[in-house]
């Protein structure tokens, strides 16, 4: 596994009005890892992810992907699954597949169709006629059908039943480019613990811990879930 810096965040701050939401974030993420971005609700996980994806503008600091500032080139290598349904609901699934094929050079439409079939989704169906859960599955299939360098999945398991959670995790594991890294943001730690190589704990807008998952488990003699509960006990 390469140690090249895939994602570099330097002194990143984000404020809304006068409220500081992210405070002096410094992070380095290398290729070939599955990283859990963990924190309580409102800790700043989604804000950080949105900054990496150009959906928010930093108040100060810098974000680099493969050494490049956020822009067209970085968007070519980042595959992002937001926490909400974001596809134009007037479209049919196959039209969305075409859209991804049109814009992302690394998109594999055959893989997307295969995944959608496995998920029992009809590509002729209108998104508007699908439940929120089905739309989320469509989005996951599209995002995981790219051969990206960095996959960013924001709460991919929220609002999903436990059986489907396992299926989604297996889908993620069996479909991502092995040289790539995945950042998974969630508060459902026990569900994703088994797949994590690294963890980042974020609290009140600050990174409070970044460690290898195994090292942390061995050091604390506890699961990541237990460590998280201890650390963020009310």
């Amino acid at each position: 596994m390469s140690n090249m810096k895939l994602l570099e965040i330097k002194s990143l701050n984000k404020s809304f009005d006068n409220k500081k939401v992210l405070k002096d974030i410094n992070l380095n993420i290398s290729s070939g890892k599955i990283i859990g971005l963990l924190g309580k609700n409102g800790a700043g996980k989604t804000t950080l992810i949105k900054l990496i994806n150009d959906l928010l503008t930093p108040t100060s600091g810098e974000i680099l992907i493969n050494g490049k500032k956020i822009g067209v080139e970085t968007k070519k290598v980042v595959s992002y699954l937001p926490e909400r349904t974001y596809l134009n609901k007037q479209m049919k699934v196959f039209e969305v597949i075409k859209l991804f094929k049109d814009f992302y050079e690394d998109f594999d439409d055959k893989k997307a169709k295969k995944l959608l079939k496995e998920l029992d989704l009809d590509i002729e169906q209108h998104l508007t006629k699908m439940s929120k859960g089905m739309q989320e599955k469509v989005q996951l299939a599209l995002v995981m059908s790219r051969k990206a360098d960095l996959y960013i999945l924001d709460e991919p398991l929220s609002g999903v039943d436990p059986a489907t959670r396992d299926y989604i995790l297996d889908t993620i594991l069996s479909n991502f480019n092995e040289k790539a890294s995945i950042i998974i943001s969630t508060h459902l730690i026990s569900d994703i613990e088994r797949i994590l190589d690294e963890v980042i704990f974020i609290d009140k807008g600050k990174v409070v811990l970044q460690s290898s998952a195994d090292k942390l488990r061995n050091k604390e003699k506890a699961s990541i879930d237990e460590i998280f509960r201890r650390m963020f006990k009310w």
Partner: protein
Amino acid sequence: MVNKLLKYDLKYMIKNMAIFYILSIFFALTTRILFNMEQSAIINIISQISVGCMFAMIVNTLINTIMRSWIRFRDSLYKDESYLTHTLPVTKNELYNSKFIQMLIFFFISFIIILISLFIAYYSKENWLAITNYIKTITTGLNISTLFFITMTIIIIFLEIFNAIQCGFLGIIMGNKMNNSKLGYSVFFGVIIYLIAQAIILLLVFIYGLFDSTVMELFKTATINIDVKAFKVLAIVSSLLYILIIFIMSMLCKKELNKGVNIE
């Protein structure tokens, strides 16, 4: 990439506008057919309803072209869909250009549909003659060619509407920079920007008038007795000024977009 973006913007617009185009032409056809039928009280009532529906659809076509351009702009750049839009490997300039070209294309299509609807409903030799005579009266009075008059009128109407739509785009960009009441601020900024743009155009015409006495007469006299030369100059100068304002506004929109967005 603009062509790819444009493809999806146009698809969105056609899905939303097609119904107005179809209904506009449909009611134009029914109006035509009903006018040609033997008149009775019932036919007369139905004809009036058909005429009312046709004009409602024509107005809807025009208003929806403008409103849908704004809604598409806002949804695509600031609502849920923006999570996809801003993560596509395209520049902010390309995003803006696609929306702008889509607006130009659809306004042109809507204009043609409106003309076709009116033509279907009302074309007859007598009506055609009445319209051409009316235009001739104006153009003879102004001592300008009919072609010049029609061309300039259409150009100025188009430019005025493009300008208004673009003021809306800039208003949406500015409004979405605020943390609260984004829609309210978008409307507020849009109206303010439009008024400022109009004031600038008027000011520039006035400045031009300082060097052209025929144009300055428009600011000095209360009667609307436009001099022939002044009309020609005014039409050309105001068109050029509109183009300049639209260009500057477009640059401002791109500059503001390139500063970055903050999506909720």
